[in-house]
C-alpha cells in the first residue's frame, strides 16, 4: 500500500496538441488539478469535477451512505439557501448532475460558454461552503431511503443488485442493509467523509468545449486555486473482491412479462489499460443493429429485442457480461445460444475484416461522443483522477487502430472460453 495524492505525473504535464483541440493542465500549489481543452465541435462547454474515493471506501456499516455527501452539497451553503441553489441549477438548464461510483464522486455540468464563470463559482461554492445542516440531512436521508425502496419495484434495478451481490459481494449490501445504514447516519458521519476526501489535493476539474481558456483558468485560480490544502492525502488502495467461486446459475424473483438475464465472467488478471480490446470485441458482438450476438439471437431466432455486452472496470477483478431480456419461455434458449456465441469466438475467431468493422464502429462512436463537451471533460477528468494519460482524439483513434487481431485472439482464448455465470431475474 502506498501513500498517494492526486499529483499528476510529470509526463502528463504537457499540452496535448490535436487537430481538434488543445488540452492544457494546470496544477495548483494546493494540489488541485485543472485540465482545460478548447474545441468548437459544440457550441457548449462541459465541466467534470471528480473527487477520488467513492463507494469502494465504505465499510459494511457505511454501505450506501457516501452518496449523502453529494446530496448535502445541494442543501445550503454559507451564501446560498436550498432555494437559491435550485434556482441557480435551473438557470443552467437543469444540466448539473451529481453521482457516486466505486472510485470517485462526480459533479458535472454542461453550460453555454458565456455562463462558465458563473458555473465555476457555483460549483466551488457547493464544494467548499456547504453547511451540512441537520434538518437538511434528515430530508436527504428520507429521500435516499425512498429511492432505494422505489428501486426495489424496478426489475432493472433488481438485476443490477443481483449482479453486484454475486460478482462483488465484498462491496455489496442488500437494500434493507443500506436503508438501515442510512437511517443511522448523523451529521458528523457525513462531515467526516467530506473532510477526508473533499480536499483540493484529491480533486480534478476538467473543462472542455467552446470556452475561453484564459477566462476559465482565471475563474478557477480565483476559486479552487485559493483553497487551503487542509486534508491529509488519501491513501490509495487497490480494492479487490476476494477470490471465491461463482455459481453456474442463480435465480431471483422479479419482473412480470420477461426475465432479465446476465451472463458474465470475471476478468482475472486483466489490466484496465487494455480496455479498448473489450470495447472492440463488444462492437463485434453487438453494433448498430448488427454483430454476432444480435444476429444469432434477434435476427435469426427472434428471441430477444435487445442483447448487449458490457464490461465493468472499477473493482478488481473486472467483469465482462452480456445483458439480455426475454420472455420467460425463452430463458434457456437465450442462455444456451449466448454461451455458444461466446464459445464460438474461440472456435471461429474474428478475422481482419470483422475486426476492421468493429474498429470503425468504435471510432465513429468516439467521434460522435466529441459532440458532447461534457463527455470529453469527463474522459479527461477520469483519466487524471486515475493517474492515466490523457490522450488526444487523434491518439485515441490510433489506439483503436492499433488493436491487434492476435491480442483479440489471446483475450478470447483467455476469457471467452471461461465458465460463464448466468443470473436470471424472473
Amino acid at each position, binding site marked *: 500500500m502506498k501513500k498517494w495524492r492526486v499529483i499528476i505525473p510529470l509526463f502528463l504535464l504537457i499540452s496535448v496538441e490535436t487537430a481538434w483541440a488543445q488540452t492544457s493542465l494546470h496544477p495548483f500549489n494546493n494540489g488541485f488539478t485543472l485540465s482545460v481543452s478548447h474545441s*468548437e*465541435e*459544440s*457550441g*457548449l462547454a462541459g465541466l467534470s469535477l471528480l473527487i477520488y474515493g467513492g463507494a469502494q471506501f465504505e465499510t459494511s456499516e457505511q454501505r450506501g451512505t457516501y452518496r449523502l455527501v453529494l446530496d448535502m452539497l445541494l442543501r445550503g451553503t454559507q451564501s446560498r439557501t*436550498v*432555494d437559491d441553489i*435550485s*434556482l441557480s*441549477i*435551473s*438557470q*443552467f*438548464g*437543469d*444540466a448539473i448532475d451529481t453521482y457516486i461510483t466505486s472510485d470517485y464522486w462526480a459533479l458535472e455540468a454542461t*453550460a*453555454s460558454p458565456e*455562463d462558465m464563470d458563473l458555473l465555476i463559482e457555483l460549483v466551488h461554492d457547493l464544494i467548499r461552503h456547504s453547511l451540512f445542516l441537520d434538518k437538511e440531512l*434528515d*430530508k436527504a436521508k*428520507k*429521500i435516499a431511503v*425512498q*429511492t432505494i*425502496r*422505489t428501486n*426495489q*419495484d*424496478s*426489475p432493472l434495478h433488481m438485476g443490477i443488485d443481483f449482479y453486484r451481490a454475486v460478482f462483488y459481494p465484498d462491496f455489496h449490501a442488500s437494500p434493507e442493509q443500506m436503508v438501515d445504514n442510512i437511517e443511522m447516519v448523523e451529521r458528523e458521519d457525513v462531515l467526516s467523509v467530506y473532510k477526508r476526501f473533499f480536499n483540493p489535493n484529491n480533486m480534478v476539474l476538467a473543462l472542455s468545449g467552446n470556452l475561453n481558456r484564459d477566462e476559465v483558468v482565471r475563474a478557477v485560480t480565483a476559486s479552487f486555486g485559493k483553497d487551503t490544502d487542509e486534508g491529509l492525502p488519501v491513501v490509495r488502495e487497490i480494492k479487490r473482491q476476494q477470490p471465491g467461486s461463482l455459481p453456474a446459475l442463480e435465480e431471483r424473483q422479479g419482473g*412480470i*412479462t*420477461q426475465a*432479465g438475464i446476465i451472463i458474465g465472467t470475471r476478468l482475472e488478471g486483466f489490466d484496465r489499460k487494455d480496455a479498448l480490446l473489450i470495447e472492440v470485441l463488444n462492437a463485434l458482438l453487438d*453494433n*448498430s*443493429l*448488427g454483430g454476432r450476438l444480435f444476429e444469432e439471437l434477434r*435476427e435469426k431466432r*427472434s*428471441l*430477444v*429485442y*435487445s442483447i448487449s455486452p458490457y464490461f465493468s472496470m472499477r473493482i478488481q477483478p473486472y467483469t465482462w457480461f452480456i445483458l439480455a*431480456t*426475454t*420472455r420467460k419461455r425463452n430463458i434457456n434458449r437465450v442462455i444456451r445460444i449466448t454461451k455458444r456465441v461466446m464459445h464460438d469466438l474461440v472456435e*471461429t475467431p474474428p478475422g481482419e475484416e470483422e475486426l476492421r*468493422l468493429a*474498429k*470503425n*464502429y*468504435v471510432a*465513429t*462512436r468516439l*467521434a*460522435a461522443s*466529441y*459532440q458532447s463537451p461534457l463527455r470529453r471533460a469527463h474522459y479527461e477528468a477520469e483519466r487524471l483522477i486515475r493517474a492515466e494519460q490523457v490522450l488526444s482524439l487523434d491518439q485515441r483513434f490510433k489506439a483503436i487502430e492499433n488493436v491487434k487481431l492476435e491480442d483479440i485472439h489471446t483475450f478470447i482464448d483467455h476469457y471467452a472460453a471461461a465458465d460463464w455465470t448466468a443470473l436470471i431475474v424472473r
Partner: protein
Amino acid sequence: MSRYIKITYRIIITVVCMLAAAHFSSELTADDEKASLHEEKLIETERGAMIYDELPGGTRVLVLEIPSSPVAFGMIAVNVGGRYESEQNAGISHLLEHLMFREVDGYSRLAPIRETGGSVNALTDMELTTYYFTVLPQHFDRSMYSLTNLVNDPLFTAEDLEAEREVVLEELAQGMNDPRALVLTQLVKEIFPDSPMNSFVIGTEESINAINYDDIRTFYDTYYSPANMTVVAAGSLDAQSTMKKLRTLFERETLQTAPSTQFEIPEPVLNTLIKKIPIKQSFYIYGFLTPGKNSDDFFAMEVFDILFASGVHSRLHRRIVSEKGYTEQIYPNWYAYSNTGIWAVFLSVDPDDMDDVSSLLREEMHALKTGKFSQSELAAAKRALVARVKLNLDKPEDLAWFHLENLTYRNTTMTVNEYIQAIDRVRVEDIMRIGRMYCSDDRTITIEMKPARGVERLFLILKYLTTKTI
C-alpha cells in the same frame, strides 16, 4: 451461405453502393440548371446555413450546415404512426418499421453504413416514423443513398413478418415487465377506451398477432409516398451541394398528394383510478390533455411545464423535494402531438406520504391557475427553459429533430433564436389560461397505485398468471 461468400457479397454490395453514390454525385452537374428552377429557402441560423426546399413530388428537404461538427446526421421521416391506426391494426406502423430492416439473403442494405462504423436506427411515434443514421461526414452520401433504398424499396417477405412479429412481442413484453407499466397500460385503456393513443404505438399482443402480410404491404403503399416524407441532413456538410444531391435522390416527376388525416382528440371517460398492485412504494400519476404542437398555446404550455413540475426549481420540486424531502422520484412528461398531447407527472412515494403529496400537487396547480406566482418566478422559468433549449439543440441530431418537428407540426422553418423569442413572449395570463382551459378539476386525471400486501398480493399474482392482467 458460407462466411467467405458472405464477406465477398458484402464487398460487392459496398462497391455497388459506392458507385451508386458516386453516380448520384456526378449527376449533380447535369442537374445544376434544373435545380436552380426550384424555390429554395436559404436561412442563416445560429450554427450555420440552412436550406429548405419542397421538391416536385412533394418531399420536403432541409439541410443544416454545421461546419464544426465531427459527424453528419441524416433522417427520412414518414408522416405515419400510432394515431393512423385502428384498434384492429394497432402497432402496424411500428411493426413495419422493424420489417424495413430485415436482411436480404443474409445481407443488409444498411451494411454500407455499418461498414463505415456509422449507427443507424429508427423510431416510431404517434404521428411520425423516422429512419436515421450518424456517420463521419465523408460517408454521408453513400449512407443516405443506402437509407433511401431501404425506405423506398422494402424487400421483406411473409417469413420476415413472422420473425419480426416475435421480436416486437419481446419489445412489448419488455415494456410491460415493470408492474407499474403493465398496470398503467391497462388503466389508460380504461380512461381513453376508443382512442389509438391507448395502444402506446406498439399495439397489443392481439393486434400484433392479427396483422398479416397483405395488411402491412397495403399500409406501406398508402403512407410511404414522397409527398408524405421529410428528409433532413445536418452536420459537417456543404449545404448547397448536399441539397443538390438530395434533390437528385428524392425528386419525382409528378406531385403526389399525401394521405389526408384528421386526428380526433381523445376524451377521458374516467378521472380517478385507484389500484392495488404488487409494489413496495406507492405510485401516483397526475395528468391532463394539453394543447398540441400546432397550437398557439404550445409555448405557454412549455413554460407551464417548467413552472409546475419540470426541473429542480419547479413548484413541485421545491415543495416535495427541497421543503418536505418526500421523494426525488418525480418524472414529469409531456407527450405532445399535432393537435393534442398528454401531460403527466409520475411520482414514487412512501405510501404514508401519498395524501400529502397529492394535496401539495393540487395546491401548486391551483396557484398557477389563479395567477399566484410572481413575474420574477415566470421570468426565471423562461430563462430555465431557454437554457435547456440551448443545451438540447446543439448536436446535428438534435437540431435535425427540432427542424423536423417544426416542419411537421408547425409548417415552419423557424430557427432556434425564433423559438427562444416565442418563449420570451409568454405572459402570466397565458399560464393562467393554460391552467384554466386544460387543468380544471374535471379535466385532470389521477391514478393511484398502492402496494398490495399479504393475501391481496398473492391474489394479484394468481390473477396475473391466469388473465395476464393485474
